């Protein structure tokens, strides 16, 4: 195997692995499995299961795409440029409006719509669903590329 997880040819794999074949299907299947697990918990009703799916998905999305910075492998080739960038900012080398970014932008929206439907537009559930959706959609806007509000998560 390569020496300790480093790559040759100087391409950051974080920028391209979300374009791999079958990643969309796997993403949808993973969310479905999460939902089925939550539905199988006996004391949760359907509305709570949907809201929990939405919230857990959004929190996971936020942590992996917007909170963790850098790469889990050594980046010898780019002199640490990607160490300060979150995964979202590294996708497709910073190019905006690519297909992957559109897909990842739409996923929380679709989950929000489904969750709102299945919770019968209950106000309390709406608050949770909307707030987590905004938490995960606002960092994805191209205007917020590289922006760190109040210096949170800068280094």
């Amino acid at each position, binding site marked *: *195997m*390569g*020496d*300790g*997880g*480093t*790559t*040759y*040819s*100087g*391409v950051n*794999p974080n920028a*391209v*692995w979300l374009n*791999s*074949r*079958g*990643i969309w*299907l*796997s993403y949808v*299947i*993973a969310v479905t499995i999460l939902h089925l697990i939550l539905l199988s918990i006996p004391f949760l009703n359907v509305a709570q299961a949907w809201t929990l799916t939405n919230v857990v998905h959004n929190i996971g999305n936020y942590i992996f795409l917007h909170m*963790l*910075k*850098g*790469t*889990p*492998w*050594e*980046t010898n080739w780019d002199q640490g440029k990607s*160490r300060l960038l979150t995964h979202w900012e590294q996708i497709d080398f910073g190019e905006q409006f690519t297909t992957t970014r559109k897909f990842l932008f739409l996923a929380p929206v679709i989950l929000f719509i489904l969750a709102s439907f299945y919770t019968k537009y209950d106000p309390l559930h709406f608050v949770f669903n909307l707030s987590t959706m905004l938490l995960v959609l606002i960092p994805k806007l191209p205007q917020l590329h590289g922006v760190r509000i109040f210096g949170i998560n800068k280094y």
Partner: protein
Amino acid sequence: MPLPRLTPGDRLEQRRHGGRTCAQALQERFAQLRPTPVTARKVGFTTKIKKMSQEVTQCLTYVNYGMLTLFGYFRDYLRKSGLETTHSAIERKKMKDFVPLYQSFESFVTRNIYMRIRDCGNRPICSVPSAEFDVLEMVSDDGNWHLRLTGKSRRCVNVASYNYLGFAENTGPCADAAAKALQQYGAGVCSTRQELGHYSIHEELEQTTARFLGVEDAVTFGMGFATNSMNIPALMGGKGCLILSDEKNHASLVLGARLCSTVIKVFKHNDMEDVERKLREAIIHGQPRTHRAWRKILIIVEGIYSMEASIIKLPDLIRLKKKYGAYLYLDEAHSIGALGQTGRGVTEYWGVDPRDVDIMMGTFTKSFAAAGGYIGGSKRLINYLRAYSHSTTYACSMAAPVAQQVISSMKIIMGEDGTNRGQLRIKQLAANTKYFRQRLVEMGFIVYGNDDSPIVPVIICMPAKIAAFSRELHQQNVGVPVVGFPATRLMESRARFCLSAAHTREMLDKVLDAISDVGDRLQLKYSLNPTTKAASAEECYKQVDSLAHEE
């Protein structure tokens, strides 16, 4: 393949080539070299199940990576809370208020994935890497963090070394000649080429290389990687130059390109339409801000790509280069000696004049079983490189026994030693390649690359199967390198077999049986349509036998 529309330039070429455009001539050439087409079958039920199983494999690969990540986080937590001993470097307690020295997220993959399968790589060997070699056994008591030798070794079939023509031997005419050169010149050179490191054996080596390649002159260097990284900056040093580099180029080419102050554009792997598009864009728009014309444009490609085993589409590239006035740098590290009827590399394979390639680079490490690299081209180019290359100015030249090994092996390949041993080796390699690839495809593995390349990458999608494949084959005495993410794409982890003229058919059969057995147990036979071309491999072996009996 539809014919391109005839442009005015093409019509001019048509008049020149007697009624056929270059593209039409190329089409005929491609048609000769294209393998026989797979007959279209109706997609039956079993094929549908198999297609679904491919989708399932893809999803399971992502699940595999996800599980590894989750377990990685879990183990990191155990290490942090002290429930598990931490073997990697950690900060001292009293430095906790200082800026941290290590960013632990960056070594996540090393700690949690690479360390677990570390025993599959870096296996020490203790014999000459010919068709078989002795691999030293290593064991670990703490999950591969510390590996120790047991002192025992295991004799394995060598499908890992780049020993294409089987010259990695410690007996025979090459070894004897190298020993004599050692007696005459000593082991080291102790000087750079431009000072006192230019020996008569280097002269002989360069003339032999130039004769072998069919170019005017050649210059050689002591290290193959350094040939690229030290000479591309010497060639493309000025401002206003453009490098078009294939996306799968080797690290030495990427480093060489980055060491110059040029603009680098990357084109899709082996995609000539992308090359043409980027050439046109570059010429039309000019340099980035000033829009002046580029001073020179260099296209950097390889003959055979070692990870993909694909062969560059050279005739198309030469046509483009001539049409748009660019230069071509061809890195034949893996293809020299391994392709072509007389082993002259990818130019002979396609029937292209080697003088059409401006800069022919290659290494002596693979087919010639020595070390070092060369650059061949016109006399002007080579004289320039002799004066201005970073390697001739600062690096010591090739050691004399190594140079002698190259000279002897080149003479054997060219047939100048009076026997047909070189021809026999080339034919044996070609037969082995055809046979091995054909058998693997018949078994149902996904094999990448061109049917004529002696490198055979077999796709193992899942990361855990990489380790299992390597270890199981090691148990069955076959030594094979495996490589996975992040060195390859996420879905394309692979095992890479390198065939050699030293392999006999019995050895290949043994290896293939082991691969088939392991492939069945690990369910690696993903392919949907195993094609068979039964006749060709047998013919090649008959040719080899007749040639061997001529001796």
